[in-house]
């Protein structure tokens, strides 16, 4: 599913609220049909919700494995890092996503290209048996070929049965990889489309002039995968 909207439409705010960084004023979050309460990224992760932030949140000085396990390192006897097991899992996750552009999972992230970094960030998100992956502007900083790679990656996630929410204002990208499109305007959902039965003009119209049901400022954000 794609979440689109102009600048200031509330896309990022909605995402941050879903993972518990911002509190909701009203409304409820339902995940897998059940109402849930999320008070921080840890709660979200426990439910299987992972976010790939626009800035990717990678530590440049660490290698790929260390980044994928950041904050959730596997250890032996309590304190020692279990490097072999982590490297294995990292490699397997990347392989399962058909990420072949990484020469070594022991490369320092500072030495990776934008597309490779995005791949690492996405792999980091799906490694934890997550059910829903939210990608915030995954292609905003990428070149043509790298955008292509990331969009392919997004499709593969969906094919694995994961819920994928992609936040973007690049309609071209959205039409390439999303099944459904939700349009936000001034904090409200103004339209929903099936990608197969709509076109870019219709979506653009909704983004710029979507009908508001009530006064702006009240977001009845219902998050669903």
């Amino acid at each position, binding site marked *: 599913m794609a979440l689109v909207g102009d600048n200031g439409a509330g896309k990022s705010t909605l995402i941050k609220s879903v993972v518990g960084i911002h509190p909701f004023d009203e409304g409820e979050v339902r995940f897998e049909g059940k109402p849930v309460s999320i008070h921080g990224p840890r709660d979200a992760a426990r439910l299987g919700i992972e976010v790939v932030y626009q800035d990717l949140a990678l530590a440049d000085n660490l290698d790929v494995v260390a980044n994928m396990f*950041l904050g959730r390192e596997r250890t032996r006897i309590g304190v020692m890092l279990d490097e072999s097991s982590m490297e294995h899992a990292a490699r397997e996750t990347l392989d399962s996503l058909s990420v072949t552009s990484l020469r070594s999972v022991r490369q320092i992230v500072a030495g990776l290209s934008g597309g490779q970094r995005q791949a690492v960030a996405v792999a980091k998100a799906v490694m934890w048996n997550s059910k829903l992956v939210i990608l915030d502007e995954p292609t905003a900083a990428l070149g043509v070929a790298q955008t292509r790679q990331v969009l392919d990656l997004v499709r593969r996630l969906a094919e694995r049965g994961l819920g994928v929410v992609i936040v973007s204002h690049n309609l071209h990208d959205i039409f390439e990889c999303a099944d459904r499109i939700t349009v936000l305007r001034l904090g409200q959902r103004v339209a929903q489309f099936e990608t197969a039965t709509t076109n870019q003009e219709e979506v653009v119209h909704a983004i710029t002039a979507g009908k508001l049901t009530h006064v702006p400022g009240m977001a009845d954000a219902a998050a669903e995968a």
Partner: protein
Amino acid sequence: MTTEQHDAASEVEVGAGVSATELPGDDGERRARAQESVADYLRRRWEAIWGGELGSIPIVIGLIAIAIVFGLLDDTFFTPRNFTNLLLQMAAVATVAIGIVFVLLIGEIDLSVAFVSAVGGVLMTLLLRPEASNWPAWEAILVALAVTTTIGFLHAIVITKAGVPSFVVTLAGLLIWSGVVLIMTTQFSTSGTIRIQNDTVIGIANDFLTPFWGWAVGVVVVVGYGVSQIQTARSRRSGGLYAKPGVVIAAQTVGLAAVTFAAIWYANKDRGVPKVTVILLVFLVFWSFVAARTRFGRHVYAVGGNAEASRRAGISVDRVRIAVFMIGGFMAGVGGIILASRLRSVATNSGGSDLLLNVIAAAVIGGASLFGGIGRVVAALLGALVIASIDNGLNLLGLASGTKFVITGLVLLGAVLLDALAKRRRAARGAV
């Protein structure tokens, strides 16, 4: 647009080259992947170095250059007596610098370490005074270390909870603790100098191992290194992961053995291996282990690399910062005790002079980046060796302090420039 095309091209190239060998396959293929040849290993290392991951290479070259220059200029530089002197001289700076490496790793600075170390040394000395409490040596040492660790904790609390930059907080600390040192030393003596009369404490930095124990320590170091390397390689290989080729491990172990045994042989021709060198090695190994092999160490590097990402990954950034400043305070205390022991006294000028500059310069020259997140604990040892060698050599040549400062400063400047250059190279390699 041209840069994008360039990136795309290089990416495709890399992808094509790798997919043939690195696709997940059966066990045979995995094992083949794990058998990296010596040539592959050397090529990979070379590429990493060229890409700005310099590690300890510049400093080893620098040390060799320093040794050659002073060896040619002064006949007494290469004597067993001077070598053991050098080991004694570098111990305190290296010890305090270990703490500074941790502080630099999280991208902070601690300007107070020199005077905090003096607080430790003076406090221990006061507790040991026969006319006062006359404590047993170990209790006095532990109390001193507890106090310096607490000082690190207090600094960190202000830095993390009030959000004040560590530069300013520890600058205030520098003033405060220098004042405390003055108050403590002048309170208990009119001359401002207090002698240590406890043999155990004096022995820390003035006793030497017998030749037998010197060799025993050397064997433990070499065997320990070799075994840990082989174990790592074996566990990685059995997991089907890249491992250092056996030949490389053997070569590295033999190299370490050669350097270690040569040093022990040389020291034994004089008074032997100093006890304090062994103490330094124990701390070095312990803190290297903490930094490189534990979850806490990983978090230290992560906080230095990207604090915001660490926070989002659920790491308690403040707790890591506090722990690191406590390590800084603790190691400063150890260094202060070593220094007091070496001088057999503390005085009003303890912790002053160029101690702070030498300690920070040692960490940076050793390869700890001022930008945070990069550097190894061994940087403290290598950097302190450089600083002590320059100091020692220039003293032998009879040069004035002014000249010494200028030369040490130039070496530091060179190290910082190299750090900045290496950072740019790393960025260039991965830039988009």
